[in-house]
């Protein structure tokens, strides 16, 4: 089974490729949406600005959506997670995929003694709310590596939350679509476990 890694030219895919290679996945980077027909599953990675997803909106959205409707598994990472929602305050007017309901927003830094730094950079804990297959074998409290300023809202589909000033959605799953706000490719053994869980989901 081949997994398509979507490159929308926002940042660096080396680490994601390396991590999937380490767990034995067969990853390829399609150059145009038509090549997604060969993919058994799709990974939407991402760092940077929500505006970068405009490339996806134009070229890829319909193909990716049809794949999801047909039961093709998808994993969104960081910005790739935020893109699954309706939109983001980071790029008002630009639509996300709209698969999950809600708008992404900037984490408030707060003020005074309770203030936190934004961007949220570093290792923080997953508080698992609703065990699902993407977090199988991951203990609540496990730490993973984040680097972001914007977050997705907490909904019924949220699997795990993380607290930085206030709680936000760290992991979400709906059926064969899963997404994580952190970087599993940079989160040591916990991250690799989550990638293996996605691989198993894709192969099931």
């Amino acid at each position, binding site marked *: 089974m081949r997994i398509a890694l979507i490159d929308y030219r926002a940042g660096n895919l080396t680490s994601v490729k390396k991590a999937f290679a380490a767990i034995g996945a067969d990853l390829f980077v399609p150059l145009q949406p038509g090549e997604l027909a060969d993919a058994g599953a799709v990974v939407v990675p991402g760092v*940077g600005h929500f505006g970068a997803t405009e490339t996806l909106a134009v070229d890829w959205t319909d193909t990716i959506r049809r794949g999801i409707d047909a039961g093709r598994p998808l994993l969104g990472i960081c910005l790739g997670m935020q893109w699954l929602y309706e939109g983001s305050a980071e790029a008002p007017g630009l639509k996300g995929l709209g698969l999950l309901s809600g708008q992404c927003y900037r984490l408030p830094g707060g003020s005074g003694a309770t203030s936190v*730094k934004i961007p949220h*950079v*570093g290792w923080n804990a997953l508080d698992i709310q609703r065990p699902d297959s993407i977090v199988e074998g991951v203990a609540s409290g496990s730490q993973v590596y984040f*680097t972001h300023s914007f977050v997705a809202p907490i909904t019924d589909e949220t699997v795990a939350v993380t607290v930085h000033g206030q709680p936000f959605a760290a992991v979400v799953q709906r059926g064969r679509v899963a997404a994580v706000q952190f970087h599993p490719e940079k989160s040591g053994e916990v991250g690799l476990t989550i990638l293996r869980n996605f691989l198993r989901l894709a192969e099931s």
Partner: protein
Amino acid sequence: MLSKRIIACLDVRDGQVVKGINFEGLRSAGDPAELARRYNVEGIDELVILDITATLERRRALADTIRRVARELFIPLAVGGGIRSEDDAAAAVEAGADKVSLNTAALSNPSLVTTLARRYGSQAVVVAIDAKHAGNGFAVYARSGQAAADRDAVEWAREAEDRGAGEILLTSIDRDGTKVGFDCVMNAAVSSAVSIPVIASGGAGALDHFVDVFTEGRADAALAASIFHYAETSVRSLKEHLQQHGIPVRLS
């Protein structure tokens, strides 16, 4: 709660890890990939490879070192030393660096910070500042501490943030390699002035130095080299010590 990060720095010359005192007097500390592996097992949160004698002909050697270190590591890896251009940064990123650290090049060409932040995202751009106490402020030095840059560390850190830097790596020239403790005064001044994370570096010699820099020094992360290389302190025992002092860390 966000953990305070412990970062190990590998100062690399000719493919070997070396470490000096006050930026001089280097001695060898071993193979970078081997050290990286050991730190990873002990629970290091992040690694920095600093090519301390980066020259054009050694660029390929550096890429090999990055590749060897990155191969089996799934934690953030930053690379610095001799990154002067977008091409230099691209070579480091392609070899497996998640972040590039700019020092002298950012001082002489601040727009490089913005260029790289646009290309790779701010999270991939670290501005490294080498500074020491001077009067009421902190004088910034370029070229591995050799050339006064005529900038103040607080003001330069603010500018770096405005230009798109995702983190500041602040090294105390006064404390580097001395093991007398981090410069908490300088670190707190810079950390309070910016909203991006500040990594404190220079002077780690005892477990309590890390407690100090995470409290009075207001550091988001602390970087050390020699304290780990010669196995004086394991990463794990350091983190246990921090946890006992109420500082949030990642213990796996």
